């Protein structure tokens, strides 16, 4: 059937497709955003609806320091990838380590906040609607931070043991997309929970 030559159609251009790591991460981020939207909506819906105390105004403090740490970790991670692109492996490891430390500070901050809320203020997930929505939303975000940190630590270990070269810069790009997303979500959580919610 194919003995007659086929004249190719004239409009053919070079064939380049988007990268699947990036698109995959973008899809994951859309899916995760939808989950966060539901939790944020629940938070806003129940704002001020608790039948008993404590209220956010009584117990919440603005986590300014840890927020600064988390947000700056997006920059350090960006610089890490830039360094990797230029094959500056030492700088890459250093920036990556800084990112991990900043992320860890944020997590420790959350832990201390929760400890205080639970043991001093007596606010648990069962106490009232504020407790319910607060721990689930902030907890969901913290879970994402933990997952991100684990992946960053894995990358750091590979970096320190010399398994990372500039060929892997692309993978680090995909990973940093995730981390930037986690940061962006924090901006929303911070605004809703600590600014509007108080």
């Amino acid at each position, binding site marked *: 059937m194919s003995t*007659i030559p086929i004249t190719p159609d004239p409009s053919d251009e070079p064939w380049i497709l988007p*990268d699947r790591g990036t698109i*995959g991460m973008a899809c994951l981020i859309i899916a*995760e955003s*939808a989950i966060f939207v539901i939790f944020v909506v*629940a938070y806003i819906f129940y704002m001020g609806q*608790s039948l008993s105390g404590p209220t956010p105004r009584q117990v919440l403090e603005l986590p300014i320091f840890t927020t600064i740490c988390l947000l700056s970790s997006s920059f350090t991670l960006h610089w890490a990838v830039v360094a990797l692109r230029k094959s500056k492996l030492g700088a890459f490891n250093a920036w990556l380590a800084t990112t991990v430390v900043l992320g860890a500070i944020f997590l420790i901050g959350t832990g201390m906040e929760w400890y205080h809320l639970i043991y001093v203020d007596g606010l648990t997930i069962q106490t009232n609607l504020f407790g319910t929505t607060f721990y689930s939303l902030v907890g969901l975000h913290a879970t994402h931070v933990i997952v991100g940190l684990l992946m960053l630590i894995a990358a750091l270990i590979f970096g320190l043991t010399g398994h990372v070269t500039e060929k892997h810069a692309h993978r680090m790009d995909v990973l940093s997309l995730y981390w930037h997303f986690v940061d962006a979500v924090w901006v929303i959580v911070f605004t809703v929970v600590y600014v509007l919610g108080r």
Partner: protein
Amino acid sequence: MADSVSGLSSVEAIDLTPVEKPRQLFLEVLYDWVTTVDHKKIGLMYIAYSLTFLVIGGIEAIVMRIQLAVPHNTFVSPEVFNRMFTLHGTTMVFFVGMPILFGFGNYLVPLMIGARDMAFPRLNAFSFWISAFGGFLLYYSFIGGSGLYGAGSAPDVGWFAYAPLTAKVFSPGHSTDYWTLSILLSGIGSIGTALNIVVTIICMRCPGMKLNRMPLLSWLYLVTGSMVFIAVSPLTAAQIMLMLDRYVGSHFFDTQAGGSAILWMHFFWIFGHPEVYILVLPAFAFANEIIPVFSRKAIFGYPAMVAASVGIGFISLSVWAHHMFAVGMGAGANVFFVFSTMIISVPTGIKIFNWLATIWGGKIRFASPMLFSVGFLFQFLIAGLTGIMLSVAPFDWQLTGSYFVVAHFHYVLVGAILFMIFAAFYYWYPKATGRMMSERLGKWHFWLMVIGFHMTFDFMHIPGLLGMPRRIYTYEPGRGWEIWNLIVSVGAVIQAIATLIFVYNLVHSYYKGEVAGNDPWDAWTLEWSTASPPPSYNFATTPIVHSRRPLWDIKHPEDPDWNYE
């Protein structure tokens, strides 16, 4: 020489002479299937898994229909009836509808876009196994509780599990936990597969397959996949909240502590309504491939079809609260949802007209795939019309919670989606197995199915209009419902028989069917250019396409499609 231009023509280069393979031991075969990451095998596993659940869900439907055939029946207890409709709805939506469509997507998408596999083969296997585990988990609930005849401690909260029925006080024990967990797991699997399908379509197309040359099936799977992340994720979130409520005592849906039952309804239907479209868009996708081939015409209005599909995807995300007209959202909200619901009939109408225009004046072959597609067209139209009736809020106030609604959504789920799934089986079976399905059995299947379907679901509207509520386990004689219920039940049995003929046909044709060859229907898309069944690498050389119907170009080099696009 043509080979260098179009990778397609090297189809013949694949060696098709049968080779005697040493027989594999059963355990080896099992090991192969369990560990596979090949998109075709995973697709087939999805399909096998959902066919199993189709039979189980069907048995549950028959149990319900036996119970309701005559008034005051005592075939099952009220408790068992509740469990039956919960399991039936959950099974049919989550463990039949979604997996079967993902199965076809998995199998077909890479073949149709000329790729060798999905973008993330291992994620694909993971998603399958986690979904399948979710399905089995629902039925683990049978073990324990009050024993097998009492359906164990199976969930009994309805497939939308309205709060506060799911609260610890109203559903003690673990039945609801089984329900949430199984939905949660299968939801994670669905999101994984959808992500994979979307990334595959965006990133794995063979050279020349621009977006505007993709088969419409891939377009529809692209839209469906994106809808899955946007719609199934909220369901996952809601299930997490429900689990928190049940396990650690939070109060999301606990009305005693100020929580809201309406919030659950919103969250559920933000998923539930788009879900209907997640199920129906792949059915459209099959129609888009089958109707042109069996009318011997290119699809009419390709760009309009794409636009309509994307439009449906978007609009369907904004209509969920038409399931909640009766809860008292207020006039403003009701008006909004009435109109957004009605708007969706515009793109849907465009699709129906395009299919009709494709059939119009074509050389129609009424083989089984086409028969089921024509059935689909009619039935989908009627389902759309009752849907528009229900989208009028005052009308909905009268009929929500009645059998009319049950008839409406089964018109879509069975009359449209299930019919197209059957069509897809008849159409692609030769590709997957190398053999044709029996046309004679196919005709029996089709006509019995049509008769049974219309007996069941046409007549189901009537007791609905006469005020028969859904989910009642029995009713009083003398309200004029008896005769209709009897007809409905007989129709259900006829459908069950038709389905068994189909299952028999599947098995029988695998051994005895006519050998199909690569391209039994004289079709135009890439999957027909490779062997049947396709080798594990799909294509010997990566195809290169120049138009929407690459095989047409090869078969008709004097008149290729790209002159017209």
